């Protein structure tokens, strides 16, 4: 079957399936998942592709079981993956926290839907806090990508596996139903691991080449031991911040106002920018690509020149908080937010951009 996958070529694919194929190409050994809309295409795709490749696919009894199966696979040094949507990702937080603490790699995908609670199956970005603040209990972080097209879903899946292995830390993609379900052309790039991926041989369990008894645990009871591990993890997070922060700036040089948006919201922002510029409004776009680590410093620098920013997000001010943190009061940060299936509309954003440009010192424009 793999011959039928035209690696290296441009194809048309659904976002969810592009993630799946990237995982297969990146050597994902086991996929564990539980059905939930709007990520079902991914589980279905993996159920077929993994078995074709002679690898492991299990439809688990719950999301809790799925992430703990990933935990198991990670302890023996194999690449594994799980995916879900918001309520299921909440259940996975137990396992993710354990893996962050035990320094086990895993790659997972949240195809975000409307919340809180059972919410709805419409697109949203309302799991931003969960994705960027760790998500479960304890002091930890996960590497989180906020891709904005199908190509990026593919590319960052491969990179996600690599970075998870490199830093021995969970890595994830925060997508939404629009990205997951839309068809778009992409190039099925062959998998090329990042340089210097460390070997797992020294720490993986059940490997006869390391006969000494090894222990993987997130339990440290000796006085000071757990705090010490936390400080060690923080050091690692600082390295990740230094090396892995990714963002894109578009036409910010002459901008009077910059839209800050990621994922689906940034696609809309991009077309807003083009239309608004035709109307003579000088708009730029700042797009975080990693939402953790967040590009605080570049945004802070941008705020030296640009005094008005409009955050466009599909959550009610979650990323707005990060932008305000980033600019440290040097710019006014306005908000255009929709959620739970409410998708930002171009004309309404342009209306708010005009309000921003007409606003007085100290005034904050918000759409709700």
């Amino acid at each position, binding site marked *: 079957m793999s011959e039928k996958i035209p690696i290296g070529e441009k194809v048309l694919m659904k976002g969810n399936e592009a993630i799946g194929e990237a995982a297969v190409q990146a050597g994902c050994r086991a996929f564990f998942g539980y059905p939930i809309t709007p990520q079902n295409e991914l589980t279905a795709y993996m159920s077929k592709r993994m078995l074709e490749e002679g690898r492991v696919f299990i439809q688990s009894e719950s999301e809790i079981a799925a992430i703990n199966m990933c935990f198991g696979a990670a302890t023996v040094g194999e690449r594994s993956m799980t995916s879900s949507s918001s309520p299921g990702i909440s259940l996975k937080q137990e396992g993710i926290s354990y893996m962050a603490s035990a320094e086990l790699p895993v790659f997972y995908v949240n195809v975000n839907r409307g919340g809180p609670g059972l919410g709805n199956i419409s697109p949203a970005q309302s799991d931003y806090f969960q994705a960027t603040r760790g998500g479960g209990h304890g002091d930890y972080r996960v590497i989180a990508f906020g891709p904005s097209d199908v190509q990026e879903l593919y590319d960052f899946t491969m990179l996600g596996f690599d970075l998870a292995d490199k830093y021995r830390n969970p890595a994830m993609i925060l997508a939404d139903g629009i990205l997951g379900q839309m068809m778009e052309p992409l190039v099925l790039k062959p998998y090329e691991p990042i340089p210097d991926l460390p070997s797992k041989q020294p720490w993986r369990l059940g490997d006869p080449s390391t006969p000494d008894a090894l*222990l993987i645990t997130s339990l440290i009871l000796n006085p000071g031991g757990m705090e010490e591990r936390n400080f060690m993890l923080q050091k690692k997070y600082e390295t990740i911040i230094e090396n892995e922060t990714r963002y894109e700036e578009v036409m910010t040089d002459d901008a009077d106002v910059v839209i800050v948006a990621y994922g689906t919201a940034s696609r809309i922002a991009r077309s807003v920018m083009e239309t608004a510029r035709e109307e003579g409004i000088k708009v730029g776009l700042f797009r975080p690509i990693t939402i953790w680590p967040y590009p605080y410093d570049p945004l802070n620098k941008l705020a030296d020149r640009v005094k008005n920013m409009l955050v466009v997000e599909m959550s009610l001010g979650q990323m707005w908080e990060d932008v305000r943190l980033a600019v440290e009061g040097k710019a006014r940060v306005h908000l255009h937010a929709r959620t739970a299936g409410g998708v930002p509309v171009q004309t309404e954003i342009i209306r708010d951009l005009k309000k921003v440009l007409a606003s007085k010192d100290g005034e904050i424009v918000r759409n709700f």
Partner: protein
Amino acid sequence: MGTTQMKQVFGMPEAMKAEGRFYCPGCGHGIVHRLVSELVDEFGVRERTVGIAPVGCSVFADLYWNFDVVSAAHGRAPAVATGITRANPNVVCVSYQGDGDLAAIGTAETIHAANRGESFVTVFVNNAIYGMTGGQMAPTTLIGQKSTTCQLGRDPAIMGYPIRVCELLQTLGGVAFLARGVVDSPKNVLTVKKYLKKAFQYAIDKKGYTLVEIVSPCPTNWGMTPPEAMDWLQNNMLDYFKPGVYRDIGEEATVEVEPGN
């Protein structure tokens, strides 16, 4: 001066660490840990064995076992064991769990691992109480038995009935071996070892899910001396948790893991 030939007749298994001294006097966990270590040696699989320490008193199993150990989240050991053995089928995996871990918070993981016929050894220590957290009611606490969260005794009208795990799992298609033993005498300890040996053999041969339940004392949280605890176990637990083999598909057979089986 003549020399006397000394022959060692009893010693520490290679798969056991000397420093394991954690459990209370009269606790069953230490005996069961040792049986696991002896079998790891006997099967010659120490270097490819992964033990799972659960959440419960036996979270400290790594202090006893001289092979690789991972500590799982509470109740999730069967899912972790599934991930381990599916991702690397060469690994011999022992999922060691208490009654709270296996039959309360981890019930779903247990039933579904059993139903899928996952090939790892489940060692299930049933001491009818939550040991580590200080003696709360367990899913296996007997009717009338007192604990810190059923101080007047377990009342089934409010708290339900003690769960018999072997009987519960008996109907599932993926199960290859189920047995219940008790660590109350040298003879019965040897029977437990015999059960565990079969479970190891089936797990190594990928024959399906195996579980050995071990009725075991927790003198500390039963509020008894070790001899009293053993008496109480024999006079109360064994009537309800009857020792014996509950399923054995036989050496030749392999479980058919099919829905509806």
